[in-house]
């Protein structure tokens, strides 16, 4: 299963990691262990890694996730190096280009469809979650400013 592959990348024994993720019933009532913390972090960073690759137009990752984010050769990072000027902290807000109240996911899809001329992805898709993870991670420490133009 996919969870197993993720942990091979991070050189963690797959069986142990799986055990931590699934855990015993009612594990949330126990104090969190360092091993659990590192596993949760690894799950997150794997999404960041995938989002980073998608954001930078990595063809293999797009193929693997069955998405077409661009048909112009343009990737997100070509206008947004290090996610600059994506302003995730300003969403949700009235977005002028769409002339509607929009979320970051709406904006991601707008960029895919308009400048990139790619194919819109589902709001709850793996690719959307990975892109969102990368953008937010990249802007860790930016102050929330929802609604800002």
């Amino acid at each position, binding site marked *: 299963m996919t969870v197993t592959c993720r942990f091979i*990348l991070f050189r963690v024994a797959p069986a142990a990691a799986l055990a931590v993720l699934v855990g015993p019933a009612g594990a949330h009532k126990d104090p969190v262990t360092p091993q659990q913390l590192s596993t949760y972090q690894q799950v997150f*960073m794997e999404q*960041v*890694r*995938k989002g*980073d*690759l998608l*954001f*930078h137009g*990595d063809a293999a990752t797009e193929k693997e996730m069955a998405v077409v984010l661009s048909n*112009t*050769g*343009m990737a997100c*990072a*070509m*206008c*947004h*190096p*290090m*996610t*600059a*000027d994506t*302003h995730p*902290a*300003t969403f949700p807000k009235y977005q002028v*280009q769409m002339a509607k109240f929009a979320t970051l996911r709406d904006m991601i899809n707008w*960029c895919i469809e*308009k*400048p990139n001329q790619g194919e819109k992805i589902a709001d709850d898709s793996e690719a959307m979650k990975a892109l969102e993870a990368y953008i937010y*991670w*990249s*802007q*860790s*420490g*930016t*102050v929330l*400013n929802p609604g*800002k*133009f």
Partner: protein
Amino acid sequence: MSELDKVRREMAAVLQQPGVRPDPSLRITRRTFVHKSCLVGAATVAETFAWWPLINTLDIAHAAEAPFKFAWISDTHLYPRSLNTRFVEKTMRAAKEVQAMSPPADFLIFGGDLAQLGKVEELELGVEILKEVNIRKVYIPGEHDWYLDMGKKWGELFGQPHWTFDHKGVRFVGLDTVSRGPDYWTAKKMSPEERMGHMATLDGTVAGPWAGVGRDQLDWLQKTLANWDRNRPVIIFSHNPLYEYYPPWNFWVRDWREVNEVLKPYTKVTNIHGHVHQVLYNEIGTMRSIGMLATSWPWPYAPEGVPKLTKPMIRVDPGDHFDGVGWEKIDVSAQDKVDVEYVMWRKQVLAQSPDDYAKSIPEVLRPRVADNMWPY
């Protein structure tokens, strides 16, 4: 203090000492987009975003023997025509407009990044489109032109990547700031395409600090300027800015100290550069530096290091691919002035209020990770 901060403070200490500026005869005029108040102290928000003219005028004493104009186009980033027609359209538009200049420009300088991935097909497409321009053309390379075949095709098409000529009382120099990158490919056994891919990613972490002039070229520059009167104008073209703006995106040359050493004796140096795809102005020691627009797409301003003297360009509409891009006319007049005009394909080029400037919403950014992780 971060490593970057330390370097930046060092540059400010070395090159931006109080009172050190380009020759005072390079007088700031009302038409200049440098904000006067920035030169003498901190500008207020209202001053920074006050009405700003489109034309940048620099007065240069003993400059032109006769008035002339030249044009700059760069950063067309052409893909094969079959993949991306938008970049082709915009390059064609810029070429047509340069050709239509009246009176005509004396020459066109192409400032690098003609191709996107350095392919023969892309470089040849660029040559074909620029055939529209019938005046003298000179070229310097960008990193996107170079790292597929290490400049082989570029050299066949355009010859030496650094050169000099005198024109009507101004010494012009073209520099190659791209070809001397550190070898990041051999140890990792990269294919030429992989090498190019890392180089073509502005925020990549693999190609490293590739922008530089190099000792050999600095020696050549020193020799080239040796017989030139120190009070006469020099205009230097380079793909990257010749100072330190934002190293993670190679918005610099890593040997800016040595460049400054060579240029220091000359009081009227203007550097015109590409690569940043944005309106940019700075004064470094006795040198003025002006950043040019791309025709392909605008880069955002870096999260830190934007020169205080820069009047920022306006936030662009990402839905209009003709927005935020363009080319430049440079006019050396009989009154010994050098004007740079940003020809952006919209009415307002510069931010009119803080809300027009993307950097007025602070962002804390971190570099990407995936290009440094397995299997890369």
